């Protein structure tokens, strides 16, 4: 059994389980599935700076902070106790494209250590992959009023057309960055 669990889970299992979060949160307490709001609540709690956007009672939304705190714990369990002992299998075409862009580490885990290590923090790699990337995620999701969970899953589940607009925009942005932006960025950071 543990053997089965420690292997990577197939898409239909994961998709079903993630989809079931929608009714679970609704039934547990009328909560709409959404994660990026937690970033706003953290701002409202820690650095509101008298901005109207952060002037609300974040304590009423504290369930959301428990939820993301739980995700950290779940990430720990999935990455330690239930860790997949084998190297991950990457699609050969993606592997070759990334090799051409300068990535060398395909075996140590779910993220390439060429990019994701503390030694890169104060380098161009850190500036692009941690600072710029993270900033765009935080700014973009709030500007769009939701992320993959709030729009692509919760919004589409409730057949909301603005969420479809958002989801399509997310994908266009991702395709554009992957194919047009990243070749330049990767060269610039010296991968």
């Amino acid at each position, binding site marked *: 059994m543990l053997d089965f669990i420690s292997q990577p*889970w*197939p*898409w239909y299992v*994961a998709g*079903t*389980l*993630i*989809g079931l979060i929608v009714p*679970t*949160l*609704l039934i*547990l307490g009328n909560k709409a599935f959404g994660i*990026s709001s937690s*970033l706003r609540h*953290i*701002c409202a709690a820690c650095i509101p700076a008298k901005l109207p956007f952060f002037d609300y009672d974040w304590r009423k939304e504290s*369930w959301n902070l*428990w939820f993301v705190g*739980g*995700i950290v*714990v*779940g*990430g720990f369990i*999935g990455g330690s106790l239930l860790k997949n002992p084998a190297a*991950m299998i990457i699609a050969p075409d*993606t592997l070759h494209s990334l090799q051409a862009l300068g990535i060398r580490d395909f075996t140590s885990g*779910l*993220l390439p250590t060429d990019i994701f290590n503390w030694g890169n923090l104060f380098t161009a790699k850190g500036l692009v992959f*941690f*600072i710029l*990337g*993270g*900033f765009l*995620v*935080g*700014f*973009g*999701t*709030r*500007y769009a009023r939701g*992320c993959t969970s709030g729009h*692509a*899953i*919760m919004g*589409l*589940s409730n*057949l*909301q*057309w*603005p*969420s479809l*607009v*958002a989801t399509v*925009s*997310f994908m266009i*942005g*991702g395709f*554009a*960055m992957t194919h047009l932006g*990243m070749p330049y960025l990767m060269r610039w950071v010296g991968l």
Partner: protein
Amino acid sequence: MVLTGKSEEKIAPVATRTKVANWKFGLVGVFFGIVFVKAEVISWFRIQEMFRLDSFHMYGIIGTAVVIGIISVFLIKRLNIKTLQGDPITITPKQFSKGQIYGGLMFGFGWAITGACPGPLFAQIGAGYSVVIVSLLSAIAGTWVYGALQKYLPH
């Protein structure tokens, strides 16, 4: 639409109405985090595969989740299912704003670079990729800057 018999049955035991403690949402988060890691949703490589159309994995996950979500929301509305506290389930409709396009594109750029949307950022940190704490702090800063600039941006 009207299934009074059934819904009254469900309303009945609500005499002992209790507030659901927040830790239950924490528990759902734990479960969600495990799924994220085990299905490799938190993998930078899987996001690259998705944007390079080299793998069906992420499309399968998001597609299945949406189908399950649509069926669930449909059933909740159709059967008039209540929350555990006995309240009617309400879902706030999403308002359109141009931010869904501009902000959506910006998030897409960030998604491809970091290989993570906000949920996986939290799960990556838990799974031991501690440097992602920096990305998360930068995402919080991004949210803050949006809050500061909101009135100057087209919506």
